[in-house]
């Protein structure tokens, strides 16, 4: 039995700070994806929403909210949440129903509006909520976690602030002509290094902003896509080969938001792979490919340094060698394994439930050869990776 589903269409609402309701962004992205697929909304029999937890009740039931905004059509509905991995989780839910033969055409939508400044927990006193406690007891913000990882790269592998700045320089260049990117401006290394330090060693320009944005993906069975291709005459089919949504294996030994401690490895032993390594590993296994087969990657650059971590977590190079890959230009478009040709979070800013879907949109455009001004020539296999919180993370492999 084939485990593939086809990506029939993709679409976005441009990232930015537009001051509108998340529903509007989601509907624009959904309509764009449906138009791209050539599938009318009434033909969609499953809609899966990526939940947003900062937009009232409508955000909690995002799937139904988008269904209503598009016009109730009787489709099945689901809403998924998995922090930054939300979009991939929603894709997985849609894929499973298609592969089970219970749905034929699924629309997956994620959209968000995001507040300014640090992401902070919801109001109230919650002494049993680790996300609240880390702020109250330690003042431990999200950038502080990113900074721990960055500093460790410096002390262990000789990474420098200049390396981190070069990630930003590269991604800014990649995103220059991406019509959906929020920031489309070259950035010089010295600008990064001269920006204020937020959490040592990370500067303001090392850390991604938060944005309004939306992305949508139309999935269908391979058979349905082939029928559609006969009708619309489209070419090579882009397929989802894997969606990894694994949890950690005890003990989870790398400190992760929002926790203040790790599990102990003293009794259970150190697991063969870190959690983030296991995310990519499960994706490769499901897709039946190896890291050498990957032509292009979209990874979660919440910070510049984190992009380097992900490159190694996905086995695109050996541990401790990501700086070398960067310095040699191998992660730039035209290099051996271009990373974040879209411009990444550096150019988009983070819009939690949309981000993992936006990565899939980008890879779809790349694999179709439609990534104008940022095309990775001849790309046939792409991988995404997503940070999560609380044991979430994801990796999606697409291929044509």
């Amino acid at each position, binding site marked *: 039995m084939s485990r593939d589903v086809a990506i029939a269409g993709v679409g976005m609402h441009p990232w930015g700070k537009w001051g509108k309701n998340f529903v509007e962004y989601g509907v624009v992205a959904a309509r764009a994806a449906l138009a791209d697929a050539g599938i009318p909304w009434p033909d969609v029999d499953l809609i899966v929403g990526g939940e947003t937890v900062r937009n009232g009740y409508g955000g909690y039931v995002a799937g139904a909210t988008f269904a209503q905004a598009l016009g109730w059509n009787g489709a099945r509905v689901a809403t998924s949440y998995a922090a930054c991995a939300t979009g991939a989780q929603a894709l997985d839910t849609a894929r499973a129903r298609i592969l089970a033969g219970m749905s034929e055409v699924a629309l997956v939508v994620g959209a968000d509006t995001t507040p300014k400044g640090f992401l902070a927990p919801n109001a109230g006193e919650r002494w049993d909520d680790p996300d*609240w406690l880390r*702020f109250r007891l330690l*003042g431990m913000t999200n950038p*502080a976690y990113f900074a721990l990882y960055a*500093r460790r790269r410096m002390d262990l592998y000789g990474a420098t602030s200049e390396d981190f700045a070069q990630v930003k320089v590269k991604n800014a260049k990649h995103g220059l002509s991406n019509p959906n990117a929020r920031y489309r401006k070259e950035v010089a290394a010295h600008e990064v290094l001269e920006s204020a330090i937020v959490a*040592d060693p990370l500067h303001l320009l090392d850390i991604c902003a938060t944005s309004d944005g939306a992305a949508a993906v139309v999935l269908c069975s391979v058979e349905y896509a082939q029928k559609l291709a006969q009708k619309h005459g489209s070419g090579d089919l882009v397929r989802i080969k894997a969606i990894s949504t694994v949890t950690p294996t005890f*003990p989870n030994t790398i400190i992760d938001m929002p926790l203040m401690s790790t599990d*102990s490895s*003293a009794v*259970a032993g150190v697991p063969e792979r870190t959690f983030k390594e296991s995310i990519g590993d499960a994706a490769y296994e499901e897709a039946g490919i190896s890291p050498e087969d990957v032509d292009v990657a979209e990874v979660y650059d919440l910070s510049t340094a984190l992009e380097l971590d992900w490159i190694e977590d996905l086995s695109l190079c050996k541990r401790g060698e990501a700086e070398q890959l960067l310095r040699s230009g191998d992660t730039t478009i035209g290099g051996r394994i271009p990373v974040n040709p879209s411009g990444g979070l550096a150019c988009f800013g983070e819009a939690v439930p949309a981000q993992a879907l936006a990565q899939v949109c980008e890879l779809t455009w790349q694999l179709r050869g439609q990534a104008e001004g940022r095309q990775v020539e001849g790309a046939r296999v792409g991988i995404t990776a997503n940070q999560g919180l609380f044991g979430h993370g994801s990796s999606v492999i697409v291929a044509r």
Partner: protein
Amino acid sequence: MTATPAIDGWFTTGDAPALLGSKCTTCGTVFFPKTTGFCKNPACSGEEFTETELSRRGRVWSYTDAQYQPPAPYIPASDPYVPFALAAVEIPEGLVVLGQLAAGFGVADIKVGDEVELVVETSYVDETGERSIWKWRPVSVEPVETTGGAQ
């Protein structure tokens, strides 16, 4: 040490303060913060834990600082805000525990692998008075003569 711990039952105070964890009586795995109910080692079906003081010394896994004031529910130690440093510390029980660096220490004072020791210091003042929290203090260096935690 007249300050009250900012949270109950997470650490001891006094001359040799220590974090308080749980130890599974079945498999021996240590947890911090304390756990109840079922052992989180999936290979273990233990349901009983004893309170255990964690090692007071460990080695720096990584470190950073907070140069901007964190948002609520963080309560700043002073007004105006003074940055502080943070460290993730690996202790002999095989786990990593976050904490602020002791007052007077900044990111320039430590490196990955350095030894640090647990101390308890006043963290903030609320309507009940001074509240204390555990912090990590570098073993081999003296604090610099500033009021803040960052270099």
